[in-house]
Structure formats: structure tokens, C-alpha cells
């Protein structure tokens, strides 16, 4: 009897703990149990929480959900503040504007996990028309990475970003200016115009703003992904991405009810 009661309290606590989650009905739906009574009882018997592994675990998970909820909320607000940047004509993206989920990849052309993830991401982009994929330049591996990101934005100005991106992501050579310009040539770009655009202060300013977005989102390395309002760090597989997309869509469905 005592154990059943404890589990019941645990349930109430979990529900109370998770109350901040957007899809959570909140503590008022604990059926016949009054939240105030549950609270009062727990204040009198806090050892229930301390001694019971199941309860502890439930509390931990509820706490985690709350933290994730807060972090996701903060990310949504940051993304909203950067809407102009994400919709900027300098921002390379694929997929329709009517897509239900936006994925932002922060990457560096010299980052090994970024390159390893590239074919996986391509696979998802090819099979899921419901995502808008935004390419966030985050050059963190030095001068040639910065030059490559400038070149990528310059390539986007010529409407050949995807071709240039593919050429750089699949090259076997160590990145330097020769490799960057060779990739540009391979992608069919006007290299002279590309070089001029790479010097354009607007391009430099744009890259600073992308960096500011990454910092606001507390991105600490590449690749990092913002998928809807979730953040994933490190190289990912197509499966990882699809499963997060599934979670995000389920969340959208739930919140639209």
C-alpha cells in the first residue's frame, strides 16, 4: 500500500515537474489527487524522494524535460530575433519556404565530422521535401576556413552555392586558396567575380552576423544543428536527423491540437 502511494505521489511529482513543457497538461490534471495535498505530504516526508530510486529517476527526467523545454524556448526566441538574417538573400538554403521544419547546420569546410556528415545530410535533404535547410557558415579552423566561407557566400551570389559546397565538401585536398578557386572553377563559377565578392564588406558583415547567431545559440563547435527548436552537436547520420525531425513534427502536431 505504502509503495503504491509512493508511486502515485511520484506520478504527481513528475507531472508537476514537467509542467513547463509546452505539451504538458500541468499538475491540475492529477485526477482526484489535490496537488496541494501532494505537496504538503512531500514536505512532511521528503525521504520518499530521496530513498526511492524510481521516484528519483522520475524527478530527474522531469527536471531534464523542464530544462530542455526552457532551452528550446530560448532558442525559439533567438531564432525569431534573427529572422532577417535567416531569410537574407546572402543565406544559402535549400527546400521550400513552406517547409514545416527548418534545419540550420553550422559547419566549417575543414571540419572532418562536417565532411563525414555531408552525404548523410544530402540523403535526408533528397528524401524529405518538408525541410528548409539553412547553411550556416561557422569557420573555426583558421584563415582558409574563413576564406572558404567567404567564397561560399560569393558562390551563392552567383546562384551556384550547392555546386561549390559539394565540390569543397568532397575534395580530398587540404584547403588553401588554390583548392578553393579550383572548386569554384569546377562548380562553374566566374572566379574573378567570386574573388571580388569575397572582398565585399557586406559578405564579411554577413559572416559576422552568422557567427553572432551561433554564439547566441551557444554553439561551441562544428558541426552543430538546430533542428526546429532542438540543438544537436557533432557529426550525425541520416538516421539521427530523421529521428529528430520525427520528434519535432510530433511536437508540432501535439501543440497544434
Amino acid at each position, binding site marked *: 500500500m505504502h509503495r503504491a502511494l509512493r508511486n502515485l505521489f511520484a506520478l504527481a511529482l513528475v507531472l508537476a515537474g514537467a509542467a513547463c513543457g509546452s505539451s504538458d497538461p500541468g499538475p491540475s490534471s492529477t485526477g482526484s489527487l489535490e496537488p496541494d495535498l501532494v505537496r504538503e505530504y512531500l514536505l512532511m516526508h521528503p525521504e520518499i524522494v530521496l530513498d526511492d530510486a524510481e521516484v528519483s529517476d522520475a524527478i530527474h527526467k522531469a527536471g531534464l524535460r523542464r530544462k530542455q523545454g526552457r532551452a528550446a524556448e530560448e532558442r525559439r526566441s533567438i531564432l525569431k530575433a534573427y529572422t532577417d538574417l535567416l531569410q537574407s538573400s546572402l543565406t544559402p538554403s535549400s527546400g521550400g519556404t513552406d517547409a514545416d521544419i527548418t534545419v540550420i547546420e553550422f559547419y566549417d569546410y575543414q571540419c572532418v565530422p562536417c565532411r563525414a556528415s555531408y552525404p548523410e545530410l544530402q540523403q535526408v535533404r533528397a528524401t524529405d521535401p518538408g525541410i528548409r535547410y539553412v547553411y550556416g557558415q561557422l569557420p573555426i579552423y583558421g584563415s582558409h576556413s574563413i576564406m572558404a566561407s567567404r567564397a561560399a557566400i560569393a558562390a551563392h551570389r552567383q546562384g551556384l552555392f550547392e555546386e561549390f559546397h559539394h565540390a569543397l565538401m568532397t575534395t580530398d585536398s587540404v584547403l588553401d586558396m588554390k583548392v578553393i578557386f579550383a572548386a569554384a572553377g569546377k562548380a562553374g563559377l566566374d572566379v574573378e567575380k567570386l574573388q571580388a565578392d569575397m572582398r565585399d564588406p557586406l559578405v564579411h558583415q554577413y559572416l559576422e552576423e552568422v557567427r553572432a547567431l551561433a*554564439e547566441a545559440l551557444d554553439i*561551441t563547435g562544428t558541426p552543430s544543428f538546430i533542428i526546429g527548436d532542438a540543438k544537436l552537436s557533432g557529426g550525425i547520420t541520416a538516421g539521427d536527423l530523421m529521428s529528430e525531425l520525427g520528434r519535432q513534427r510530433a511536437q508540432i502536431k501535439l501543440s497544434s491540437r
Partner: protein
Amino acid sequence: MPALIASAALMIALIIPGVGFAADPDPADYPALSTEQMGHVRHMINIANDLPGDFELLGEIDPVYYMSFDAYQFQFAFAHYALASTHYHYTPAYRDLYKDTSAKLIKRMIYKDVWDYWAHVSKFDLTDRTETEAGEVMVNYTEEDWYGWIDPNIKKNIMYSGHLLQMVGLHESLFDDHRYDEPGSLTFRYAPVEYGQPPVEIKYDHNRLTTVIYDQFVEDHFRGIECERNAVYAECNQHPILGLMSHDLKHGTELSGEVRTKFKQVMQKRNYIDPETKSTMYFLKVKQDEVVPATYAWADGWNGHAQHVWDKEYIESIYPYQRERYIPSMLKGKPGENMGWTAPFDFGWFALLASEVGDKETVQLMSDYADANFSPTWIDGGLYYPFTPDYSYNFSRDENGLIQNVGPVTGNVLIGFSRINPADGLWHIYNRPFDSSHFASPHITDVDYLEASVTQAVFDSKKDALIVTLVPGPVASNNVSFTVRQLETAKTYELIKDEKSLGNISAEGQLPSGTRWQDNGSLLITTTLHEQSSFIIKAI
């Protein structure tokens, strides 16, 4: 007869294009960064450019104390001071790169992983600890006395807040940039995700930070503000003093004089620097009211280089004793000998003091030693000495009797700083600060940092000439450009590249090839740069 020859030379110089005028400023007469110095500068700028949460080159946080003598805050702060010295002495007429980098380093300082150690460290008295037989240090928590602060500035922790104040003060005085006067410009965001608490924002600005620190000096009767609980370190208190000097300069306050005078009185009365050994104390135990004496090269170097700014004669009077004590034994000893736990950072801080007091011979000796033994490494145009994997626990000499372990603060910052910093380097910044004429004078901007390094940029007001030297950066480029600002439109200037006159520059006349006026009145110069090139733009 000599007068006739001089007149003839003058005529030739004026008449024949391409022949430099004898009185042209000579770039060799002005300070310029060497290849190695420029490498150190670029490494520190590269660190500033890393993402705020990227600490890959900076070592690891100590698992017991959550901070150490190699803590991130010290690396950012000393990189900031090193770049301040670089800008002041070598590139005062090139501001935007140093100003942006200064702001980036301040931004890195207020990233949570740099300062949130205080939420932990503020809970215990670091002086109250025991060592086990195995040599492990155990911190003794006293439960009834537990308390801690999230706010890294509000009380004690001058080992953080003092640096932040110095950095912000330097930023304002070197660049006449008042951004940190804005309320909330130094906002600390406490991470709720990690700590399970609601979000907290702690808002500071230059004035509030100054007030909080000055008030603590007063409350503590000028005996110095605690770094950790119950421990006052002399060197930690030097940085807020320098910060107060900058605040006085730009805000018209009179705070630093009082603090310097009274702190010095306490230092003398309590023997913070022992008159016998001429060495800086380890720390003052506040509750026990007990000075713990020591003879540490790092403490003398750290305290001395900063105190030298406001107590030059005294520091220079004790320096020879300190040098004699540390340098010979630091550089050569018995193979396998244990050098003690301070070895990975003794070297760097003492080298810095040697540079500040102008002991060029010792700086050269130590730089050469570092180059020979500390694995100098170039990455992306930057030069540094990578920290050794066991820097925090292996202090023995190698088989040749040499230092074998280098900590991150020494390798990333301090050796480079000492190599860059000229005699009285910091002294000049604080005692001969830039005035309004400096900020109104011609200077260059918009040099692509990837394509070119500026090794000197000086405006010589007596000769009314701007002297600039560029070297190629890590990215190969056919052409580089830079912008010259604040030239006087009423004047005509001559543009000289590598001793060859390229022509005259005036508001009306024809411009030399590769130059053009921009809409905002600045002059854009585009040039090839395959090797070092010097430019002189002088009024005629």
C-alpha cells in the same frame, strides 16, 4: 661646402622622382614587430577569435579547485595586456583589429565557463586543506560556513574581477571606446540548463564594476581584496589598481591614488614583499592575520610587472635580487630534479617582469630557451608553445636538467608577451596614455587580417608622417588593401613605398596608381604584397 652638398642632395631629391628625400622618416627608426613577435600576436588574436566556448588550446579546468594558475581568465587577460602593449608600442596607428580583439577577449571573459568556477570556489577556504600521504590535496569544507556567490564580481574573487576591470579600462583608454559605460554592457548569464535554476542575469558596466571593487578596497582597509576566501594575493590586487588608474583617466575620478598609497602602506607594514628576501608573499591568510612568505618566481614576476606601473623605482630596485635567485637555477639544474609545482608557470611570469623592467638580456635568454626547449609551434600564422600533457602534475627536469613541462598560460601568452613588451611597456601605457591628438591623427584600418599582418603603424606628429609596414599573412594574395583615415584635406602628402616615391596625394590632384579617395574622405591603397613592404605617407 657641406651645406652646398646638402642643398644639392635636397634639389636632387625634390627633382628626381623615385629618389627618397634625405629627411624621409626611416621605418627602421620606429618599433616594428619581428616575425616571432608577430607570430605571438597572431596566436593571441586567434585565441580571441575562437568561439567563446572553445577552450581546446587553453588546457583543462582543475577538477578540484575548478580554477588554477593556468585558468582561462588569466590567459584571456594576459593576452589582452600583451595586445595592448603591442598596439601601444608598435601599431598605435592601426586600431580596428586591436579594438575588435580587445572586445572579443572581454566577451570571452564573460562567457560562463570562464567565471562560473566562482559558484564553487567561493564555498571553501582554500588555505584550509590537508595533504594526504599520497600527496593529494584535500579541501576542507566547513558545512556551517558554506556560502557561495554566483556573481563573480560582487565580493572577493579579485583574481577575476580585477582583470576584467583592467581589461575594460584598457579598452577605453587605448581606443577611446566607451561601450562598457552602457548599463548591462557586461552581463553575466548564469546557465540554468546546467544548474537547474531559473535564468539569472547579472548586469555590470564599467562604473558599477569600478565601484564594487573600490568599495571592497575600502571595506578591507586597503589590505587587498581576497582572491579565494581567506586568501589575499598581492599580485591579484595589482590588476584592479591598474583598472582604477584607467577609470580615473577617462572618468575624472580620483580612486587609484588613494588605493595605491594605502595598499603600499599595508604592503610595507605587513611585508607583502619581504625586505630580506625581496620576494613577494605567497598570500595573506585573512582570518589568521598571517602572511605566508614564499620565494616564487611566478609571484615576483606577476606582482612585479604590474606594480612596476605605479612603483617603478622600487620594483627595479629589488628585481636584480629576484633575477639572481631564479634565472640561473630555472634554466639549468640536475636531471630529474623536482622543480616544484609552480614550474609550469614560473617561467612565463618572470619573463614578463624581465621585459617590463627592461632586462633585455634575460628576455633574450628566456626566449631562446623557450625556442630551444618548448616546442615552438606555428598554426595559422600564430606562434605559441603548446602545453605539455602533464603540465599540472609533473614538475621534474628532463634528462638534460631542463624544464620539460610548459603550462598553457606560459605557452599561449606569457612568453610571447615578454618577447613583445619593450622596457617600461605597461608603464608607458598608464603613465603616458594616448591623448586626444592621438585619436585625431591619421591611421590605417581595414587591412584583411588573413592576407596581411601589420608589423608597424606609427604616426610621427613631428614629421607629420604615417609609417606603415605590412608582411604577407597566412592566406596568399596578389593584392592587399588598406584604408588611411584622418588625413588632412588641406594638405598634400607624398606616398612612398619601400623608399620609392609613388607620387603625391591631395584632395584635388591626380592620385598615384593603386590609390583612390572613398566617399567618407578616407584613402584606399591597394598594393601587391609578396614580401615585407613599408609605406610612408608624409605631409609636404
